[in-house]
């Protein structure tokens, strides 16, 4: 155990986390130069495009120091977005230290701060690493200063490297082995291992990533999940190289994988503790949370015939994303679909993109909603996460909506703008902290509905990316809510209905009317878009028809040309939803999530 180190790399986007990870892998000799493919750890397309890590991946690096001692260094990758902050915390809980990577030209940025706080919460050894020193714009002295002043860390301890050029890599290894403490724990105690990730493999079922704190696991052991007491027989354990590498056992301090005939990822929960059936450890490792969907939206196939194939795709998708929950749903305007629960808006977008890209599904999603609670006059209590089931307003005694406690860390200069944003979004109960000089931490109680509606994007805009943001569920609070319906040519489009706070209803309805006006193409008849509460029209816009589109002539050859055009349009239809005779592009459904000023 003396020769094991467990660590993560944390960094602001683009500061070079993936590049450094690849470089470490290469340096450890896991691959040769020729195989060196950029950014091995981030294997999903979407992640690469968005520059965020969603699914973490782990690798065990062999390392021999200058005294000839052999080490095993476990690099545990962490996801990088607030929707996944829970996963991040589980990954960090599996480490003893982190490399805090800072771009030599950009310096300390918002996520650098947020990441630092997360690492500090877990009492980890923090090694600042200044990357990209090869850049002409690199300003190492300034970055050192920021490390001292803004992060409150010892800048002399910072390592200089260029992940791209490969300089300073040996120093990074040295620091990992010399400064990060070896894991504590003992094989003498009963097994307790933390699940920090799980992935689905179509041949082998669920592959659990875990960190063993005490005890050991071997093939043939019967393990038990402490949260739900489910038991499984271990088929294989091992460590992550670039591929899985079998071992006889995983013991205290080690990080590796475990395969135990578990069919879907949802049968395991990240954060859960694994122990042995025969000799159980009584305690759940701290910090376990069931993944809780916070945001709900319905997914419909754009072509009704694709319902079954969408169902199949969701089943397959779910194998690898335990956080997604769904059940059947149907809508008058949109037909059969699914009501889904997501961790947050980003999670929603990722699911949408992956369904389209990896599963070829053309889908449409309804306006996201949170879960509301209603006390009816009859005394009945109902929970509604779908505007479709909004109770008859005459029957409602009391409405409640979920509140979260948000934490925003920003440079002081943005304080005014951020305060204003929070108040606009019905924030109450503010609190301020000054974690380090020049930085301020702002806490507010905010309705979750306001948070999922574009809050993060707005925050990023007004803080120019310097805002780090996190939230956690607080409680349900009384609120005056109304349901706004959108009508297109007098036909209600239930996918566009939403539950909002009374005071916001007109503004939101107007905003949606305008958005739809922009996104719905002109058609041959006038299109009237209305927002209504009950029978009351509160907002309206119109799309004037086009007047003339017909081509003058259509003889011999024109017919083929024209047909081809229609065939192409028909293909494009797979991204349109017909409501009555009006074609609503998929884009329109998404656009309503954005505010005017974003």
């Amino acid at each position: 155990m003396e020769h094991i180190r467990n660590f993560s790399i944390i960094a602001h986007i683009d500061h070079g986390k993936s590049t450094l990870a690849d470089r470490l892998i290469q340096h450890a000799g896991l691959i040769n130069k020729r195989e060196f493919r950029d950014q091995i750890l981030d294997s999903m397309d979407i992640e690469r495009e968005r520059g965020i890590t969603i699914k973490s991946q782990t690798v065990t690096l062999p390392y021999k120091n200058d005294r000839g001692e052999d080490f095993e260094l476990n690099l545990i990758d962490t996801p990088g977005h607030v929707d996944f902050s829970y996963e991040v915390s589980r990954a960090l809980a599996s480490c003893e230290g982190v490399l805090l990577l800072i771009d030599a030209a950009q310096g300390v940025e918002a996520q650098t701060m947020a990441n630092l706080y997360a690492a500090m919460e877990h009492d980890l050894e923090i090694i600042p690493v200044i990357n990209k020193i090869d850049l002409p714009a690199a300003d190492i002295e300034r970055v050192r200063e920021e490390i001292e002043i803004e992060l409150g860390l010892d800048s002399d301890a910072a390592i200089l490297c260029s992940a791209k050029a490969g300089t300073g890599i040996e120093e990074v290894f040295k620091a990992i082995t010399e400064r990060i403490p070896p894991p504590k724990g003992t094989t003498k105690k009963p097994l307790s291992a933390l699940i920090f990730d799980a992935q689905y493999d179509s041949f082998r079922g669920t592959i659990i990533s875990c960190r063993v704190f005490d005890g050991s696991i071997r093939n043939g052991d019967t393990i038990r999940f402490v949260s739900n007491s489910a038991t499984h027989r271990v088929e294989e354990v091992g460590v992550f190289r670039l591929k899985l590498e079998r071992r006889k056992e995983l013991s205290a301090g080690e990080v590796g994988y475990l395969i135990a005939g578990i069919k879907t990822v949802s049968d395991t929960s990240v954060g859960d503790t694994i122990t042995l059936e025969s000799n159980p450890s009584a305690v759940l490792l701290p910090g376990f949370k069931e993944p809780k969907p916070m945001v709900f939206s319905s997914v419909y196939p754009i072509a009704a015939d694709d319902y079954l194939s969408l169902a199949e795709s969701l089943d397959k998708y779910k194998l690898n994303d335990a956080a997604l929950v769904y059940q059947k749903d149907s809508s008058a305007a949109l037909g059969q679909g699914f009501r889904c629960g997501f961790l947050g808006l980003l999670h929603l977008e990722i699911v949408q993109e992956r369904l389209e890209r990896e599963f070829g599904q053309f889908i449409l999603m309804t306006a996201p909603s949170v879960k509301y609670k209603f006390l009816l006059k009859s005394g009945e209590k109902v929970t509604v996460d779908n505007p479709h089931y909004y109770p008859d307003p005459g029957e409602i005694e009391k409405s409640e909506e979920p509140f979260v406690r948000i934490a925003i860390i920003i440079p002081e200069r943005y304080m005014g703008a951020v305060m204003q944003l929070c108040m606009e979004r019905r924030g109450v109960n503010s609190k301020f902290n000054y974690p380090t000089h020049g930085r301020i931490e702002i806490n507010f109680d905010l309705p979750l509905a306001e948070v999922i509606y574009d809050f993060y994007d707005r925050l990023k805009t007004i803080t120019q990316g310097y805002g780090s943001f996190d939230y956690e569920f607080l409680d349900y609070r009384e609120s005056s809510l109304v349901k706004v319906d959108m009508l297109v040519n007098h036909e209600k489009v239930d996918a566009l209905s939403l539950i909002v706070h009374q005071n916001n209803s007109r503004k939101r309805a107007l905003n949606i009317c305008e958005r739809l006006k922009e996104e719905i193409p002109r058609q041959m008849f006038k299109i009237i878009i209305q927002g209504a509460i009950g029978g009351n029209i509160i907002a309206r816009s119109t799309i004037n028809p086009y007047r003339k589109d017909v081509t003058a002539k259509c003889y011999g050859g024109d017919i083929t040309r024209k047909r081809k055009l229609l065939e192409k349009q028909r293909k494009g239809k797979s991204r349109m939803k017909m409501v009555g005779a009006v074609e609503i592009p998929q884009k329109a459904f998404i656009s309503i999530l954005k505010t005017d000023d974003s």
Partner: protein
Amino acid sequence: MAAEIKLKPGLYIHIPFCIKKCPYCDFYSTADSRLIPAWLDAVKREILLYREYSSSFSTLYFGGGTPTVINEHAMRELVGFLHENFTFLPGAEKTIEANPNDLSRENLKMLRDLGFNRISLGVQSFDRELLEFLERRHTVYEAEQAIELIREAGFSNLNIDIMYAIPGQTRDKWISTLSRAVSFKPEHVSCYQLTLKEGTPFWNLRKNSTICMPEETDEEAFFLETAKFLKHRGYLHYEVSNFARDMKYVSVHNSLYWKHHPYLGLGPAAHSFFNNTRWWNCKSVKQYLKSFEDGNTPVEGREELTDDQLRLESLFLNFRTTGGMDIESFQTFKRVGTVLPILEKSNLVKIKDGRVVPTTKGLLVADSIPCLFL
């Protein structure tokens, strides 16, 4: 008009020569008249390729280009050769497109002798300035003269082509062109909107803002006024751009295209349609000639239409004609149940005698209506 069209095929001959290229035209034609003899030779060879295929045609249509630019000798030879190898039904509609200043007494007499019974005259406008703007070869006077000569020669089926939405054309100007056209009591009028095609000189002029095209609302007004004007004067608006004084003057040949009836097209760029297969010749005269030199056929492409493609075509073709589509075939398309009532309510289509037919307003958007049922 639908019912009485015979299922016999039509014959189209493309004569791809113009004396001078008009600045808005993107039809394939060449001003190089030296190619005419070789072209004639090649067309004759192409005729021989098909002579087995069809015993008799229901129409003959000489289109262009400007068919009247070929000389008397070539014209006689071509028509003679056609009759040697093909037969035509008695009373077959035989149309030739003509440019006003190519017509003379003699030449019209020859066309009659050769069996043509319908002339489609490219007048475009009875307004001097607009004719000049369009860079047509003829004058207003020549156009009027030509009409008189056509009547004198005994042609009792005349189509006049005129054009609206020309830059600088006011509605009044257009109405006076329309009135002038109608004053000659043509059996048929085709009113086309000037549309600019990429690559034409006018297209470029618009791009650099030298000319300014009418707004969409003007286009709409032109169209609606045209329809109204001609309807009042007894013309039948039977297709987007076509008007006939009587059912019997509906263009038989053009209707073949719109009804998926068979037709054979000869000459460069001509299209043919038989047994659900459409094929087309290479576009340029040079390629066309070369294919014969090389011992090949000039056919450049061919497609066999699937049932779905045929349905799709008939959908948009039908909505371009006031005959519309019979309800039963129509009901096989998607969304008819929801969309049809909306179209009816918006006064874009109506249901008449078991057919869904576009209204005048519907013809304005005839290209979009099918999109709703894809």
